[in-house]
């Protein structure tokens, strides 16, 4: 299907402080989230429009793209779906966050003694209610324009927001989605520089140029759908109780250990001994050799980020 290079605007609106908006986007449409004054964090939730049990997952996104996903990265759905839901095709700031959870009513009451206060969880819940979702359905947020990091002690921190008026991110929908941006409600934290500002939202019809910015994502048999689930229906009651007919069917169980004999030369044994003496690779020759093999294999053949510890 050929799409024109000229984008057509489908919808434009501004969300005011303390609010958010649930927007149904079709595959191929682009959502722009834009600063009206600057220095405003936008929290974001995303659901499959035709199956709300598939939703954006900060954990998998963090695993694949790091703590600060940006242009060229995807918003992934939770296991076992694990599909790219949206692609970030433009980001004029580059300070996004998938480390911090959404702020909540509890947080402001606990930290600040403010029992009634704007917060991202409740804003999301209120916006999602338009599509029948409940406060339990709000999930961990993608935090656009939230400037964060990790200090030398390993603790996360929030830095000054650097987004300026007119800065924006653009998300291309790779499936039909319910996308819910909200103006982050944290006005007594660093997140939005201690001031809540409106955000402008625009939906465009995507163009060939937009699609050309998206790399080909993997399509694997482990990206599962409900048709493959043993339980296909959504549980509709709150109480948990045992299914008397349940019989466990875990994958590849039992895990069976066997010994693989590897004959090494004197020189190779000396290398193993040197590696063992470093204390970094294992306590026995066999442990060292197993560590060596798998780290070598990961470095040479594994797809995706390696997650290797610094040397």
């Amino acid at each position: 299907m050929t799409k024109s290079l000229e984008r057509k605007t489908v919808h434009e609106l501004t969300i005011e402080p303390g609010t958010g908006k649930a927007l149904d986007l079709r595959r191929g449409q682009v959502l722009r989230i834009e600063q009206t004054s600057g220095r405003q964090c936008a929290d974001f939730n995303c659901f499959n429009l035709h199956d709300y049990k598939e939703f954006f997952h900060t954990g998998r996104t963090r695993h694949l793209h790091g703590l600060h996903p940006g242009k060229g990265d995807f918003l992934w759905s939770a296991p076992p779906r694990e599909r790219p839901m949206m692609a970030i095709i433009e980001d004029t700031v580059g300070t996004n966050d998938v480390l911090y959870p959404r702020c909540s009513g509890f947080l402001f009451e606990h930290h600040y003694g403010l029992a009634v206060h704007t917060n991202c969880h409740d804003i999301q819940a209120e916006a999602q209610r338009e599509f029948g979702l409940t406060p339990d359905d709000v999930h961990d947020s993608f935090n656009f324009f939230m400037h964060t990091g990790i200090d030398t002690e390993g603790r996360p921190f929030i830095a000054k927001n650097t987004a300026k008026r007119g800065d924006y991110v653009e998300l291309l929908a790779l499936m039909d989605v319910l996308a819910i941006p909200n103006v982050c409600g944290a006005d007594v934290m660093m997140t939005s520089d201690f001031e809540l500002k409106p955000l402008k939202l625009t939906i465009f019809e995507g163009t060939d140029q937009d699609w050309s910015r998206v790399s080909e994502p993997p399509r694997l048999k482990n990206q599962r759908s409900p048709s493959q689930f043993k339980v296909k229906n959504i549980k509709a009651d709150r109480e948990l109780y045992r299914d008397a007919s349940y019989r466990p069917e875990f994958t590849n169980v039992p895990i069976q250990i066997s010994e693989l004999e590897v004959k090494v030369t004197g020189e190779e044994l000396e290398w193993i001994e040197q590696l063992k003496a470093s204390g970094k690779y294992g306590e026995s020759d066999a442990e060292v050799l197993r560590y060596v093999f798998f780290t070598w294999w990961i470095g040479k053949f594994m797809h995706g980020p390696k997650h290797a510890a610094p040397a």
Partner: protein
Amino acid sequence: MTETTVRLRLNQQQLELIDNSIKAGESGSREELIRRALREFSAAHLPSAADRKKP
């Protein structure tokens, strides 16, 4: 040449990964693949092994 046997404890999934690498042409046997890993890893991490590669 003196040889020593090292016995690696591996489960069926780990062996599958090794066998897939052999099928892909990376080595002729499980043992050969693991010794290749040891050679290349040592060359990258041990000065003595790295020196061995120099002419």
